[in-house]
């Protein structure tokens, strides 16, 4: 699942192109679905191909890899990426990232015992809290959030309403 923020026309075009490339992979590989890491590298290449007239998008790609581990790939406009435990982008980026830094990595909490190990419900609650808080203080964040939970069993979608002011 990939999400983007900012320029809508570039966002729609890129999204379409990724979808087409994934479809062609399936046709050319007997119906096999490409893994997250393959798609992440492909997206990076697609973005860098337009190095001198970039897609004005700041992407986040998330999925479950071959080992069953969840992974997030954050991108800049020209395709720089790396696998991460969490990522965020957009106007509320500066508001949400510190919450995730603290709650996921738990780097400066000596009593916490290392990085967090969330259940699905805890992770979803954290995201909802983060978006609600960002919606309080960022005028651009609001209305609603679509939450996609990706596991080895498939993708579950939830629409979470936010404050509409």
């Amino acid at each position, binding site marked *: 699942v990939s999400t983007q923020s900012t320029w809508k026309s570039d966002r729609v075009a890129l999204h379409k192109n990724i979808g087409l490339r994934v479809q062609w992979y399936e046709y050319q590989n007997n119906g096999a679905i490409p893994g997250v890491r393959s798609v992440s590298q492909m997206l990076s290449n697609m973005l860098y191909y337009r190095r001198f007239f970039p897609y004005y998008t700041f992407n986040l790609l998330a999925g479950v890899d071959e080992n069953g581990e969840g992974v997030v790939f954050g991108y800049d406009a020209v395709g720089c990426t790396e696998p991460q435990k969490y990522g965020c982008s957009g106007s509320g980026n500066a508001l949400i990232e510190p919450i995730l830094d603290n709650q996921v990595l738990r780097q400066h909490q000596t009593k916490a015992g290392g990085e967090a190990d969330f259940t699905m419900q805890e992770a979803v609650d954290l995201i909802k809290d983060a978006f*609600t808080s960002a919606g309080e203080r960022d005028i651009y964040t609001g209305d609603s959030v679509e939450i996609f939970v990706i596991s080895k069993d498939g993708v579950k979608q939830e629409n979470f309403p936010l404050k509409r002011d």
Partner: protein
Amino acid sequence: YQRRVHGVAPPARERNPFSLENQSRNEKLALDGLKPPKCRKTGTTICGVVFKGGVALAADTRATEGPIVADKNCEKIHYIAPNIYCCGAGTAADTENVTAMVASALALQRLNIGKQSRVKQAQTILKQHLFRYQGHVSAALVLGGVDVGGPYLSTVAPHGSTDRLPYVTMGSGSLAAMAVFESEYKDDLTEKEAIDLVHKAILRGIFEDLGSGSNVDIRVIRKDGTEYFRNYDKPNERVFRAPKSYVFPKGSVVVLKETVEHFNTNNGKAPMDIDK
């Protein structure tokens, strides 16, 4: 020309209230590329409507610093006189100070002449002040009150122009609010109808305009007094809170060094009780 009363200093507002000593330094810094700090603005939807017997003023409660909400529940309806209030949009510091200045001038005048202040007087002081500063004092106001001439409602724009009207809106959400007024205003509203109308107008500003949000404040001014509905409507309470607690256990943050400095040892006697 100079207005001079013998033996009395001119009112504070006529002496230059602004200190310009940083002017040339700031210009130089700007040339070197330093951007001036962003002012806190009030984004804002403010409006007013005249009804049979008075005026109703209303405002949202969000104050912004660029794209960030600085205050989720600020007060934008300012006191000017017991029978005159003013909603303010634009730079928050400007609206606060300019309305305080007018309130002070009118209070002094009431002490001198012993009569109720007139809204036109507040309007004139405001417009003359704002025009003098050529729009740099960024205050867009909705001024309303009831005096001997009846209900009086007007806007005062940052450059100093005024418009006296039966219904007005200002701020970034003014279009949304004005859309409501243009659809539903009629002459000789009752007080209840006026409150409903301004309430509706501010709600549209809150939801459709990004610079406005949170709650609705309403003030009704009648001949015999005013009524303030602070947070008349609160359609934006926080709904979701994750059940998990964010309390950090004691010892989460490692203390590297601890030093204790004692002040006021009082020679070992019991400390003084200042509140006695």
